[in-house]
C-alpha cells in the first residue's frame, strides 16, 4: 500500500505520533491489522473508531470510515517500531 506520513505534534517533546493517509478506509485495513494484535472497535460513537496496541507498545487508532490512521510509537524504541510498522503497511 502506498501511504503518506506526517508527524502529529502535541504538548510533549518526546511524543512520537504520526498520521498515515492510506489508500483504503481504515475499516478495510482491519483484517490485516488484526494479525498484529487485538483490534477493538466502538460503533456507538458518531463516527465509529478502532484501536489496537501492538506488543512493542505501538498504539494505532482511527476512524473506521476514513483513510487516516494515527500511530503512536513508544518513545524509547521509535527507531525500530516506526520502520517496522511502515514496512508492514507498505506490504498491505
Amino acid at each position, binding site marked *: 500500500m502506498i501511504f503518506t506520513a506526517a508527524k502529529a505534534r502535541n504538548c*510533549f517533546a518526546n511524543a512520537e505520533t504520526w498520521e498515515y493517509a492510506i489508500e483504503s478506509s481504515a475499516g478495510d485495513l482491519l483484517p490485516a491489522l488484526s494479525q498484529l494484535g487485538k483490534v477493538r472497535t466502538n460503533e456507538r*460513537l458518531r463516527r465509529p473508531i478502532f484501536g489496537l496496541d501492538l506488543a512493542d507498545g505501538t498504539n494505532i487508532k482511527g476512524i473506521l470510515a476514513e483513510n487516516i490512521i494515527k500511530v503512536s510509537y513508544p518513545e524509547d524504541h521509535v527507531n525500530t517500531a516506526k520502520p517496522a510498522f511502515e514496512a508492514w503497511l507498505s506490504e498491505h
Partner: protein
Amino acid sequence: MKIYMNNAATSFPKPEVVAKAVYDDILTLPGAANRGGVETFSVFDQTRQLLAELMELSNPNDIALGSNASWGLNLALLGFPFNPGDIVVTTTAEHNSILRPLHRLEQNGLVNVITIPVDDKGRIDADEWRAAFTAQKVRLAVFTHASNVTGAVNDAADLTAIAKAYGATVLLDASQSLGLVPCTPEVWGVDMLAFTGHKYLLGPQGTGGLWVHPELELTPYLVGGTGVYSDSPDMPPEMPLHLEAGTGNESSFSGLAAALIWSRENPLDTRSFNDFMMTFREGLAAAGAQVIAPDGLCTPVISFIIDGMSCEDVGFVLTDSYDIICRTGLHCAPLIHKNLRYNNNGTVRLSLSRFTTIEEAEIAVSAVRDLIDGGLF
C-alpha cells in the same frame, strides 16, 4: 459542520467586518510610516485609541503594538531594567510566553524567579501571593489575569495592590481576559499589560501589544527602523515608537480596529454568556466528566478529564468522531497541572466564544456522555 471550541487559543468566527477591513486595507495605499500630517490616517493610532478607551487608559500612545501577547511579554521582560539578583514573583498558572522569557533571564543569571502555586481551580490565592512579597524584596511581579487552563479570573486589582505595597513593579498578562472581562490596568496600578488581538478581542492573528505606564521605561528588546528619527542610532525615546521597530501589520490591525468597533457596538451580554457557560459546565459534569469548575468570575474555558481515558484519546474522539475542535494537553501552561486536583498530564479544554451556540454545547455534552457511558472501546 465543525464545532469550534478552541477560542482560548484563537477565536473563531470573527465578525464579518473584520475580514472586510483586512481585505479593504490590502487594496488601499499603505500608511505613511509614522510621518504624520493632517491628512494621514493611521490605523495603528486608531487601534491605540480604541484600546485605550476599552482599558480606560489616559494616553493611547503608551500602547506599543506588535504581533501578539508573546511579543509584548518579551518586550516587557527582556527590556525591564533588572539589576543582577533581582527577584521576580510569578505563578504556576502562567503560559510559556511568560515562563520561557523568565527562564532565559534566570539562566543568564540576571534574576531569581519565585513561582508560587495556584489553588486547585487555577486561581491565585491572595495569601500565598502576599507571602511571597513578605519573604523577600521583589522587583517584578508577573501574573495572568485569567488562567488559560481553567478560566479562573484573578482579582488583578487586589493582587496588584499587594505587590505594589511591597514596592514591586507589576506586569499583567491579559491575553485571556481582554474583551471578556473589565480590564483597567491604570486604575488598578498595574505597570505593564500585555494583550493579544486574536482571542477575545475578535481580531486577526498577528496582532497584540504592550501597554507601559509612562513612568516606566523599558530598553527596547527589538530595535530597527521607525520611519522617523532616522538620523539617530538609537530608538526614539517617545512611546510608542520606542518599542515599535519595523513595519507594522497594517492589514491585521485594520481588522482588529474593526473588531473593537464591532464589539463596542455589540456589547457582550456577560450575564447570559456566563449562565450559558455554567449550564454547559454542569452538563459535562452531569455526563460524568471531572470538570474543573472555579467559583466566581471565569472566562469561558472549561477543562475536564474523563476517568480512565487519556486526554489525547478524548480529544481524538471529540475531534475526529464528533467534529468538535478542542485542545488537549498542557495548553502551554505546563506548571499549573500539578496544582489541579485531577492529574498532572493535562486536560481536555473546550473554550467558547460569544458565537458558540446552545446546540453546539449540547452536541459536546452528548459526545462526552457517549464516551463515558460506552467507554472508549
